[in-house]
């Protein structure tokens, strides 16, 4: 007899089928038939405003970024067919790491094939048997998975709660190795971490600190390095992890650091070593994008302006938002339950607006969201169109809202 290994997913299969049986579109099955720009695509023949792509700085179609990728594709071929530590490091990969070192003003940079792998690799390799990883409860899946892969003991503290972090650090042996893992921006609610408090407590208890700046790179801080720069804790952060799949506008992940022993990680970090490196076109595009982001002051200003317009407009229309003020370029609308979320999401897509639908376990327990991420290239007209369609969708779905202020 063969046990069907997929049978354990029957409840989820039934739940998903039940959702689709209500006649809504599949929130996890969207296909972009054509992509017209960082803010517009054709989905099922309909021109759709993209408001859930993390393409914060709109670099995906930047002429220089595209040209750099094309030139590398032509000159170096379609792929490296090899690991970074064997045949998979080209001049393009070194130039990309040089761009990161310049962008962050740090001594070392390591490029991974995705941000997921960067977290998986860094977290699991830094902390070993007998060490402790202390992570925020709302950490990204890649951080949790890095914890699972490590042989360290894993301690979780309440989201963004400095007192809770301190209480848990106090329970750990003073002489044990400790890694505190934080994020600058938490991608579900779009809230920002109080890094000065958290980092000071971590340091006071002898921990090393890793900050994931996936959703902060490009537009927080004087150099766009992230929340840790904006909040002035750069000197106390040991490792910064990031991704090319958001502001940079392509794919890839990285870690930057000033740690003198950093380079050895290339040989011991399995998600770095045992996978093929990124194609030359991707790292060439990334390098060009990163260098342009260093001075993208106008775009940063525009991104914040568009974000305030969306946040303020939704609030004025009575939508319940995850943060009272716009803390990042993610604006999350709180929804009452899975059914209403799916119905609102589906209505919005029919009206030509794409946002992310998020539910547990990606979100904290009991939290359902329509998550909007803003792009510096969203025009005021597009934001106003989106606001009108949110209003329309809420009426069609009978969504309960706050009394307009």
């Amino acid at each position, binding site marked *: 007899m063969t046990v069907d290994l997929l049978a354990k997913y029957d409840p989820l299969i039934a739940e998903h089928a039940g959702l689709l049986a209500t006649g809504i579109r599949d929130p996890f099955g969207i296909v972009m038939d054509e992509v017209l720009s960082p803010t517009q695509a054709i989905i099922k023949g309909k021109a759709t405003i993209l408001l859930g792509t993390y393409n914060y700085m709109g670099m995906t179609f930047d002429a220089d970024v595209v040209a750099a990728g094309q030139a590398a594709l032509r000159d170096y071929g379609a792929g490296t067919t090899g690991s970074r530590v064997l045949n998979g490091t080209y001049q393009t990969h070194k130039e990309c790491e040089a761009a990161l070192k310049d962008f962050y003003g740090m001594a070392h940079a390591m490029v991974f094939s995705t941000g997921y792998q960067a977290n998986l690799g860094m977290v699991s390799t830094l902390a070993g048997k007998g060490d402790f990883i202390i992570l925020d409860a709302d950490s990204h899946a890649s951080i949790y998975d890095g914890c699972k892969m490590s042989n360290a003991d894993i301690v979780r503290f309440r989201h963004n709660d400095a007192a809770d972090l301190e209480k848990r650090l106090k329970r750990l042996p003073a002489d044990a190795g400790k890694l505190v893992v934080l994020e600058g921006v938490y991608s579900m609610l779009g809230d920002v971490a109080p890094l000065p408090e958290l980092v000071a407590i971590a340091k006071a208890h002898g921990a090393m600190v890793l900050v994931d700046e996936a959703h902060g790179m490009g537009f927080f801080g004087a150099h766009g390095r992230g929340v840790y720069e904006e909040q002035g804790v750069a000197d106390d952060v040991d490792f910064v992890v990031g991704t090319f799949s958001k502001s940079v506008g392509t794919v890839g992940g990285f870690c930057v650091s000033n740690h003198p022993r950093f380079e050895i990680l290339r040989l011991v970090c399995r998600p770095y070593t045992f996978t093929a490196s990124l194609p030359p076109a991707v790292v060439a595009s990334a390098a060009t994008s990163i260098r342009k982001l260093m001075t993208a002051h106008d775009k940063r200003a525009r991104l914040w302006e568009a974000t305030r317009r969306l946040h303020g407009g939704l609030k004025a229309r009575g939508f319940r938002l995850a943060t009272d003020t716009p803390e990042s370029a993610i604006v999350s609308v709180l929804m009452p339950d899975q059914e209403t979320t799916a119905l609102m999401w589906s209505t919005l897509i029919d009206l030509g607006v794409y946002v992310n639908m998020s539910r547990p376990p990606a979100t904290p*327990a009991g939290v359902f969201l329509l998550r909007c991420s803003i792009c510096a290239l969203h025009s005021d007209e597009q934001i106003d169109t989106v606001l009108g369609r949110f209003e329309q969708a809420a009426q069609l779905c009978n969504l309960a809202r706050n009394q307009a202020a």
Partner: protein
Amino acid sequence: MTDRAGVYARILELIEPLNARKVALGEHTSFAGDMEMDSLTVMDLVASMEDEWDIMIPLNMLPDLETIGQVADAVHGLVAKKG
């Protein structure tokens, strides 16, 4: 209340508000199977037990703690070790 029976009784009290399916709780009741608790709820429950007894229950221990009885044993052991 740091003896095994006291720990067990208090754990039942901590679980009760999270027992959405209202299953009867006993030594052999399992979190995932019987109570259908999701992993986030289990982690929050663990945090409340850590604070109750001022102990540390690392998340990597959780796969071995499937039932209420196993959790009570683990907590009792950690409390005893603390002295």
